[in-house]
């Protein structure tokens, strides 16, 4: 792992720790979503830094990370990667990412203020010109999905990916 990867990974870890604390404390959904989104974005950037070039300065990245993780892993490392995430084989990991969690990860990525199209986002009241709603009072559809079993699986996956990042950082 190069130094840039290490720095982004450390920040992702810290964001995810805060997310877990907030989850346990039952704070407003917007704050939990905000930290989970940030942790996943930074995890993605930590991985993308393996190319030794700065990733695009944007909030998107987690979906790309998932695609790259299973798309770019060398054949010789695929089964080890699956085992890291407790999948019986690489094909299971690949199809779980593609069919089970991709819709939620896409929605999670799109809640950032610059991608939310002046609508529900976890940070600022909206619409910008004439606010009628604020994050702390809003019921986020993506949070509802995250509380269901696929969402819980995704949360566990993110936790594992952050904990075990050094083991696949350079794949």
């Amino acid at each position: 792992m190069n130094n840039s990867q290490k720095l982004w990974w450390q920040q992702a870890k810290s964001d995810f720790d805060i997310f877990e604390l907030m989850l346990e404390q039952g704070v407003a959904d917007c704050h939990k979503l905000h930290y989970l989104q940030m942790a996943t974005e930074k995890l993605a950037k930590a991985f993308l830094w393996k190319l030794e070039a700065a990733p695009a300065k944007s909030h998107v990245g987690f979906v790309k990370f998932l695609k790259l993780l299973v798309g770019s892993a060398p054949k010789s490392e695929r089964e080890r990667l699956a085992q890291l995430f407790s999948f019986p084989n690489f094909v299971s990991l690949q199809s779980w990412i593609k069919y089970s969690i991709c819709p939620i990860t896409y929605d999670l990525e799109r809640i950032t203020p610059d991608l939310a199209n002046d609508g529900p986002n976890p940070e600022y009241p909206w619409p910008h010109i004439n606010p009628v709603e604020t994050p702390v009072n809003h019921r986020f559809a993506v949070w509802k999905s995250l509380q269901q079993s696929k969402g819980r699986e995704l949360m566990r996956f993110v936790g594992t990916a952050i904990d075990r990042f050094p083991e696949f950082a350079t794949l």
Partner: protein
Amino acid sequence: MSIASFDRDSMAKWYATEHLNTDPGIVKIYYLPTNSGDREIRLLEVNKLMAERTEDALEPIDFGVDRGQHTEHHLFVLDVTPEQWERIESGELQLPSGWSLKNYVEYLG
């Protein structure tokens, strides 16, 4: 409602019903009250759509709910596959530390 009137068992039943009605993969839910705190609800959810996993360590997710209100509590959800549930029942697979199947309440989809 006073602080003392928080009804853990009714709340557990409400969660179980809600989860069974909204999550298509869940086939049954076990509410595990033994050894849990007064404001702690432990649900073990058997899910036929969950990805098969090899690792044995089972990890519940802790959702804090209604912080600062008289209904404040923690909801712990443990997701398992039907195969893992069979192994738990036979004693081959361990529940998380402190969890017990004693006096469980079963809810079916």
